[in-house]
């Protein structure tokens, strides 16, 4: 009896917390398809806001995915070798570098953006292109990639794997491609998931770095909240959800599949 009471209590608490988090999101999405939110659902449902959002902001959606994809590519190319180098080398210098890479997590995005602006304002072509936002996103997301790959490196004793491949005659590059990367796959997938999610939702930095021609999805969202009807902004949120949730599920499935079909000791 007492156990059941405790269970019921815990269930209720969990549901309340879940509701606290989910209800606003649901309301917001509902608002996006309501004809007039101030009159409530009784005003009827419509897709006009979504159409309007699509007309106004379709380019921001495409750009967000472009930037997220490019950020992923860059963090993979820099992050995996960096994690490998830091892990194999070890020592005080490696730890110091790891801390420096992680610094952007502690510094407010606005400060990073300011630093980038101060430094690269002179390079006007770069400043005006989406590559400028890409640079900001890479700075911000790189630690997540490096950290999750390094975590898997310590879990699988990559140093000994590397040594054993080298004893068999493999050059450093071959070792990296044949042994290190395949065995770090769960960490790489987890890192990728994080990098893409963070890049898609990043606002602070992007808001400082964007130009009217290089808006991303979250910046567009802020823009619509500030300047449009509430229904439009809400419809935008709905579009955002519809885009990002299938993507996240797909990546998660891919990661689980990667883990199941390969690796692990």
């Amino acid at each position, binding site marked *: 009896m007492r156990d059941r009471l405790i269970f019921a209590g815990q269930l209720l608490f969990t549901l309340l917390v879940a509701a606290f988090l989910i209800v606003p999101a649901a309301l917001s999405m509902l608002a996006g398809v309501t004809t007039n939110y101030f009159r409530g659902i009784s005003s009827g449902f419509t897709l006009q806001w979504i159409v309007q959002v699509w007309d106004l902001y379709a380019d921001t959606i495409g750009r967000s995915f472009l930037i997220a994809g490019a950020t992923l590519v860059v963090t993979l190319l820099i992050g995996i070798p960096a994690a490998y180098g830091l892990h194999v080398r070890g020592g005080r210098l490696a730890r110091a570098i790891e801390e420096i890479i992680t610094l952007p997590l502690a510094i407010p995005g606005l400060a990073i953006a300011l630093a980038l602006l101060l430094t690269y304002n002179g390079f006007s072509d770069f400043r005006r292109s989406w590559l400028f936002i890409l640079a900001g996103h890479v700075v911000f997301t790189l630690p997540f990639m490096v950290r999750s790959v390094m975590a898997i490196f310590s879990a699988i004793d990559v140093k000994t794997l590397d040594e054993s491949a080298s004893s068999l*005659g493999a050059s450093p590059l071959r070792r990296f491609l*044949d042994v290190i990367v395949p065995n770090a796959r769960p960490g790489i997938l987890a890192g990728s998931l994080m990098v893409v999610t963070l890049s898609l939702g990043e606002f602070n930095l992007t808001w400082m770095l964007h130009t009217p021609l290089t808006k991303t999805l979250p910046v567009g969202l802020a823009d619509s909240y500030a300047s449009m009807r509430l229904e439009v902004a809400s419809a935008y949120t709905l579009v955002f959800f519809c885009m990002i949730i299938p993507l996240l599920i797909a990546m998660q499935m891919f990661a689980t599949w990667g883990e199941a079909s390969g690796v692990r000791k």
Partner: protein
Amino acid sequence: MKAQASEPHGVAVRIAACGKTFGDGTRALEPVSLDIARGETMVLLGPSGCGKTTLLRMVAGLERPDAAGRIFFNDADVTDVPIEQRKVGMVFQSYALFPNMNVAENIAYGLKFRGGSAQERKARVAELVALTGIEGLEHRRIDQLSGGQRQRVALARAVAVRPSVLLLDEPLTALDAALRERLRSDLNRLLRTLGITTIYVTHDQAEAMALGDRIVVMRKGAVAQVGAPRDIYFTPANRFVAEFVGAANILEGVSGAGALTLRGGRLAIEKTSVKGPSLAMVRPESIAIVAAENASLTGEVTSVSFTGDRQRLTISGAAERPIMVDIPNTLMVKAGDRVGLSVDPSAIRLLPKGEA
């Protein structure tokens, strides 16, 4: 496994004054010089932290010796040659098999870098699979293998590339005792079959005795003794070697007039120039129990432990410290008995004093 012993293979390894000081100034290894003959199995034996693995890793090319040290394979100085070009075969304590490849792919991995056609590689893998007795496991994933199977795959992978020297870092330590014993004799047969120069690191003295043509006993970063297993066992150079390799009674007494005088009497010893306080070693199996009445050394049995194949007595009162004696399993002795001890003079080994 094939049983015929083969010609010596591989290279002679010469380690010349190789010491290792780590970046923070700690000395892992005093300068060591060793010559390992072509086809010889040399065992590096010692407790953890004695520098044996560091020495092995230097031969492999995974550690660099301090400036004065050189490593030679035959007459070629390989000190500056990176590991991937040294043509060594190495088995790690954790085996370090590649989890992303199956058994056959693991064994074939090194062959890719030694030339040869795909067909030749396949044939070599089949040869190694047969040699190490892992038929039927070729397509298994690494995490589907038992500890013993992993050990064999690691060995097959290291041997597949026909290395000039085979380096084994505690290859049996990760296994449980019964399996360890079986794999030890398999490993012994394999090493004899291959006839390849081998350096074998272990902290297990039974393993060292069984596998080594010669043993290097190491302690605190220095070589304590180099010799054949029999030499190490019967004529240890010092107290550390005597106690580390096998069971040993260390007797403190006074030598003179052809005898060693202990608390409980005297033991006849071979002629020696040593006079006065001295240290001697006697193995438990070299001591025989005789009637107390006419023995020159007596003591009291304080415990009898029966282990099946023999029984070990602990005798007190004969020397400063209790003496261990191994006797046949049929002899009836019980705690409290007063017994005489007799030792062949040739089985008593005087040790240098002043070493822990």
